[in-house]
């Protein structure tokens, strides 16, 4: 798997684009009036067990056959790139919310504003605002929110009690105080994980401190609100309340037992890992809404949307499947199969979501927004991680790091 192969893929994609533009029209337009056509659904994940039963039910109901291709998330973007380049691919796509801006800008996703406005079952009002934002670009809708993620604070109840916290920290000051006290438990013990491999982490805290991340085309990363927030985070490294580097521990090692890292911020996907691998009793750990900064406790919305591929030949069938999967029943079934939380507000009254921990996520969703939805954001996130690394590892100046990130970003946005 040398680079040549990766380059080969990209160029093969370009070449395929050349070829397919020529011959793409003839192939698949035949079966437009029959019922037994087949559509393709790209699904991010290692296996399709979670969606298969729902899709089978759809086929039974409508006669439309569906081929599910499940692609691991780590390769999902590569696969989408080839589809965008060759203008041939699936009919229905599960899009990660962070990839939306990219593929809207490459015109790979169908504008479904008309459907969204005419069908009240998939009307934007039904969904969480943060999720809807990931589907709307320049006043047009390109997808329907399907499942939602938001980040909350995971904490060890028993350990926090020992340092005088009967509840999770509610403010930044409390978080810092609790983390510092917990880190005094001994060598290689910490209080809170200031995540340096998560590209949204610093931006999330900056927003809690009142930062506007980007105004028009001008990034605000080196302005006071963001720098202040990052200085606050850097304090955790400086006094040993957070590890400075990835300790490469499993969740059982970092959060179970004596818990070197008794507090961290993560999404709903960690719930099962903690339950299965940490070996904790139910009353030893909990989740809580994020501690409040100067302005708010806004979290970061992610998740998945359903979109129709713009070059699909079976748009109406793909839309049927999209609508079918977007019903309340389908979303609830998907939640049961995969633990992915529904985006429909009305689905949350169902008793399968009554678990008190899940309800914490529900509460956090009221204060949760996606990162800026621009096609450059992936790169800005990566640049942020690079700028943050010296701050974490070597105690470099936050202001300097952000000045540099800001000018880098300015260049990116104005290219």
């Amino acid at each position, binding site marked *: 798997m040398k*680079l040549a192969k990766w380059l080969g893929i990209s160029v093969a994609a370009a070449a395929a684009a050349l070829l397919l533009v020529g011959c793409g029209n003839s192939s698949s337009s035949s079966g437009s009036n029959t019922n037994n056509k087949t559509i393709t659904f790209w699904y991010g994940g290692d296996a399709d067990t979670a969606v298969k039963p729902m899709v089978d039910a759809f086929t039974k109901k409508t006669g439309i056959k569906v081929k599910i291709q499940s692609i691991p998330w780590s390769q999902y973007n590569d696969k989408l790139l080839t589809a965008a380049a060759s*203008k041939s691919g699936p009919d229905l796509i599960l899009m990660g919310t962070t990839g939306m801006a990219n593929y809207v800008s490459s*015109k790979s996703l169908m504008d479904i504003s008309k459907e969204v406005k005419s069908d009240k079952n998939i009307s934007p009002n039904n969904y969480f605002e943060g999720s809807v934002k990931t589907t709307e670009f320049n006043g047009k809708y390109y997808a329907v929110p399907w499942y939602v993620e938001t980040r909350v604070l995971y904490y060890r109840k028993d350990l926090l009690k020992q340092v005088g916290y009967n509840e999770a920290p509610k403010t930044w000051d409390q978080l810092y105080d609790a983390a510092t006290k917990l880190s005094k438990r001994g060598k290689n013990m910490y209080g809170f994980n200031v995540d340096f491999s998560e590209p949204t982490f610093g931006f999330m805290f900056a927003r809690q401190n009142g930062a506007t991340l980007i105004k028009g085309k001008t990034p605000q990363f080196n302005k006071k609100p963001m720098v202040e927030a990052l200085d606050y985070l850097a304090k955790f490294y400086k006094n040993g309340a957070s590890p400075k580097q990835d300790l490469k521990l499993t969740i059982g090692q970092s959060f179970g037992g004596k818990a070197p890292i008794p507090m961290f911020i993560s999404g709903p996907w960690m719930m099962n890992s903690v339950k299965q691998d940490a070996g904790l009793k139910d009353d030893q750990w909990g989740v809580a809404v994020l501690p409040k900064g100067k302005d708010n406790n806004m979290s970061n919305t992610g998740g998945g949307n359903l979109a129709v591929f713009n070059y699909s030949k079976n748009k109406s069938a793909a839309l049927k499947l999209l609508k079918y999967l977007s019903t309340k029943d389908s979303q609830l079934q998907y939640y049961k199969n995969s633990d992915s939380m529904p985006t429909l507000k009305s689905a949350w009254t169902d008793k399968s979501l009554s678990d008190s921990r899940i309800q914490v996520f529900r509460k956090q969703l009221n204060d949760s927004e996606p990162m800026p939805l621009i*096609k450059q954001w992936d*790169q800005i996130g990566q640049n942020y991680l690079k700028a943050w690394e010296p701050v974490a590892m070597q105690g470099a100046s936050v202001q300097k790091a952000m000045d540099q990130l800001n000018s880098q970003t300015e260049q990116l946005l104005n290219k």
Partner: protein
Amino acid sequence: MAKTLRDKLIPYTFVLPALLLLALFSLIPIFIALIISFTGLDITGLGDWSQIKFIGLQNYTQLFHDSAFLQSILNTGYYVIIGVPLVILLSLTVAILINFGQNRFFRFMRLVFYTPSITNTVAVAVVWTYMYNPSMGLLNNLFGKIGLGPFPWLSDPATAKMSLIILAVWKAIGLNMLIFLAALQGIPESLYEAAELDGAGWWQQTRHITLPSLSFSIFFVTVTTLIGWFQFFDEPFVMTKGGPLNSTNSVALFVYQNGFQNSNFGYAAAGSFVMFTAIIIATLVQFKLQKKQQGI
């Protein structure tokens, strides 16, 4: 016996399939990449070709102002300068040692040293990541038993580069050892006998008979190893993602990150062309040196 047109064409039909494949999967892509490197092609341009702008040499000038790129060049240089001699030296040594005998033990050692090279780099890199794990990895546990460490195998900028090199060298020795071994067994026994009569010791025999006889295989191994190390990719891609502090990022990985993670295809293509040029130059220099050597 004048050749007919048909006779002239026959050899070409034999090489045509190979040429077609070469053109389709190497030459045309290289040419397209060259064009792309002069554009600002990104994800928007991918879907709508009318949005692609030609920006001349801007990608290239920006590259050489990009500290991440410059560092990846330095890192790649480091890999090449440390890795290539190390591979040649070690595989040659192993080959000479194994060539000492023919019994079962030596055959077994040949197997031992060859096995790593038939493994898949990505799979092996994942396994080594576990071995390098700072708190529960095999290496730190073993070193801990004798009171050393723990070593920050992949988490310290200076150490991480060496850790990757160790893995890559370990994996590269086998194949090159086999090439040297074949060449060693091709050296006529009579040369050694004559030298022995003249009273030459083992070291003198090695220096004046073995090494000169191996010059072509040394050259071959150098070129292939050099090209391989210039494209150093899998190990940092799987094990460190170029970190910590960008210290293990190679040019190849830089190109991948820009192309496939950040969707800056034009910029990535420019980076790949810089690498392409460097490899061509290095190989040409090698060929020149080899010719000179053969001329003597």
